Every structure is written in structure tokens, then in C-alpha cells.
């Protein structure tokens, strides 16, 4: 009898312990913000949307000079035109989105409890095309980036509002994204966190590492390195390649989960896409 009680008590303790290890997204968020507040005590919270330009004056001046003639302007114009051009069946993108697709990017990505999938903005754009009998666009650059740029532009200033509902599937997706962020990968055996959290603000050869807090606010991004506009998943692939890991496909479940976690960590920050970066 006593032995049975001891076993039951131990089992009870074990299950309670394993539950406690699973921190909630809200707790993760608090910890994340606290980490960066401590690492960069002079940077006000809302400035994180500017990445390295919030922590380095010299690069900020160069960036401000570039922003005088924003390199993504043409992309916004192309995106606006593409967005307003009707499909062959007469419908437009506006019919697929809330508020006609204007000023809504702060809701993305969201977890669709009906389908059990994370929905990113680019995925929603192509979903809209498929629903209306059009071919899907390529994921990383070109027209989809332009449309995303236009939709980001109309959402400028809106605070990120990614929701992780109490749903088991949503939490699992969030956790997959979180695990990707903290997992070591590639020949160089580095995680996203290695560069963008533990070493944010340090130099990597000639570049400065940007903080992961609010890192998604300015996407899609015109990168001087690309000489053009690219989506978030394009950058994820690039980052994986840089640590010599095989990149996942854009809009794969892996990157969608990562985007879910990554954007959630930027909740409360004002969107400033599309952006210009080195």
C-alpha cells in the first residue's frame, strides 16, 4: 500500500514538473524582451524595429541617406498595381482578405484552427490566387514580394499582433518555431539565437548582428546585397546556408513555424515594411 502511494506520488510530481518546463508564449515573450532590455539598455523598445540601425550610429546615418530615395519604392508601386489587377475571373486580391487587404499585415502569421496550419501573408496571397484559378507565384522574390511590399506598406505603423490561441496545434506550431530558433544546425553548428540573441550587436566579419526582437517588422526587405526585394523566407534560407545547413523550402512547415514564433516575439512593435537593409 505504502509502495503504491510512493509510486503514485512520484508520478504525480514528475508530470507536474514536465508541465512546469513548458513555458507559455507570454512568458517566453517577457523573458525575450527582458533579455534585450538588459543587453541594450539605451535602446527604447519601439526602436528595435530598425534593427542594427537602432544600435549603431554610423550605419544608421548611411541607412538614413539611402532612405531619402527608398530603393523599395518601385516595388511598392508594382505591388499596388498587381494587387489591384483583377484575376481572369474578374475578382481581385481584396476579396480574399479582411478590410480589402489594406492595413492587415499585423495579424500575420496566424494559426488557422480549422486547417491546423500556420498562415503567413505570402501563403495567403498564393492561396487567393489558387482559389481564383490563377497559377501560384514563386515564393522568394518577384511579384509575390512586390505584393507583400504593398500590403506591408499599407500596414506601416500598425503594431504586430500575432496570436497564439490556447489550441494544442497552435502551441505545437509555436513550439516548433521556437525550437528551430534555438536549435544548432549546419556545419558551423549555430542557431538563430547564437547570432541574433546571444551575440546581437557583436560583429560578424564586417557586419553587425541584428537583435531578433522585432526582426520581422521590416519585411519584405530590399537588401543591398540582393540588389532587390526579398521575402522573409528567402532570408531564412540564406541564414541556414550561411551556417552551412541545408535550407528548407520557402513556406515549408519549418519556416512557417519559425515565422510564427519569430513574429510573435515582435508583438507590440510597429511595422515598418518594406525596409531597406545592407
Amino acid at each position, binding site marked *: 500500500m505504502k509502495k503504491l502511494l510512493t509510486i503514485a506520488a512520484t508520478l504525480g510530481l514528475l508530470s507536474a514538473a514536465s508541465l512546469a518546463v513548458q513555458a507559455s508564449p507570454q512568458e517566453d515573450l517577457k523573458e525575450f524582451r527582458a533579455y534585450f532590455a538588459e543587453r541594450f539598455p539605451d535602446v527604447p523598445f519601439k526602436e528595435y524595429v530598425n534593427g542594427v540601425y537602432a544600435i549603431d550610429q554610423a550605419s544608421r546615418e548611411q541607412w538614413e*541617406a*539611402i532612405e*531619402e*530615395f527608398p*530603393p523599395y519604392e518601385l516595388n511598392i508601386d508594382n505591388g499596388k498595381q498587381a494587387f489591384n489587377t483583377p484575376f481572369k475571373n474578374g475578382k481581385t486580391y481584396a476579396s480574399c482578405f479582411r478590410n480589402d487587404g489594406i492595413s492587415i499585415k499585423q495579424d500575420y502569421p496566424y494559426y488557422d484552427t480549422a486547417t491546423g496550419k500556420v498562415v503567413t501573408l505570402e501563403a495567403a496571397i498564393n492561396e487567393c490566387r489558387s482559389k481564383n484559378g490563377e497559377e501560384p507565384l514563386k515564393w522568394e522574390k518577384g511579384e509575390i514580394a512586390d505584393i507583400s511590399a504593398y500590403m506591408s506598406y499599407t500596414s506601416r505603423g500598425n503594431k504586430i499582433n500575432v496570436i497564439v490561441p490556447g489550441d494544442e496545434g497552435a502551441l505545437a506550431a509555436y513550439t516548433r518555431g521556437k525550437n528551430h530558433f534555438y536549435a544548432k544546425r549546419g556545419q558551423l553548428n549555430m542557431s538563430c539565437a547564437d547570432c541574433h540573441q546571444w551575440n546581437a550587436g557583436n560583429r560578424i566579419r564586417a557586419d553587425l548582428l541584428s537583435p531578433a526582437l522585432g526582426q520581422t517588422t521590416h519585411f519584405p526587405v530590399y537588401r543591398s546585397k540582393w*540588389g532587390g526585394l526579398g521575402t522573409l523566407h528567402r532570408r531564412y534560407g540564406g541564414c541556414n546556408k550561411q551556417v552551412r545547413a541545408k535550407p528548407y523550402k520557402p513556406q515549408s512547415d519549418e519556416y512557417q513555424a519559425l515565422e510564427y514564433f519569430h513574429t510573435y516575439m515582435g508583438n507590440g512593435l510597429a511595422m515598418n515594411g518594406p525596409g531597406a537593409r545592407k
Partner: protein
Amino acid sequence: MASIKIRAKLSGDVTTVKALIKHPMDTGLVKDKKTGKAIPAHFIQEVTCEHGSNKVLTAMWGGAVSKNPYLSFKFTGAKAGDTVRLSWVDNKGESDSAETQVS
């Protein structure tokens, strides 16, 4: 005027002109991945800027200047409201120009 974005700002006696020119600036050395043939050279050779009857800048460029070149320079002697005109000519003989008012 469709290829040039230009701004001119006056501070004291000095006018700073900043311009972004949309141009491929092909060197003629890059091969097209699909055809294997070199993309022919197409770059701006001369850039001039006029203020009234004065030519305040003449720039001789070559293939080494990057795509969509950004230009910034200063000159003195202009007043607010004066017109500044920037023009370019490339190796194919194409040209464009744009004007702006000094603010």
C-alpha cells in the same frame, strides 16, 4: 525625367544635390546565364548639372559605376527656388534629365 529622382537642399550658402538614377550600368563583361553570351555594355558616360547658365558639375563615368547610381554633391551660389537641372548621356546615346527647385 522618369529615370532620375532628384532633391536639392540649401543650407546657408551651400546647396546639396542628391540624385538616384535608374540605369542598368552594364559593364559588358557579365554573361547572361541563360544564353551564355555577354550582356552588352550599357552605362552612363557623362552626367552634367546646370544651375541657370552655370554648369556646376560634369562627371565622366565608366562601367565601374554600379547599377542605379546614387550621386550627391554640393555647390554654392544658389538661392531658394532656383532651378537645378541634372542630365545624363550613356554609351548608347540615350539620355535623360530632371529638374528640381532648390528648397
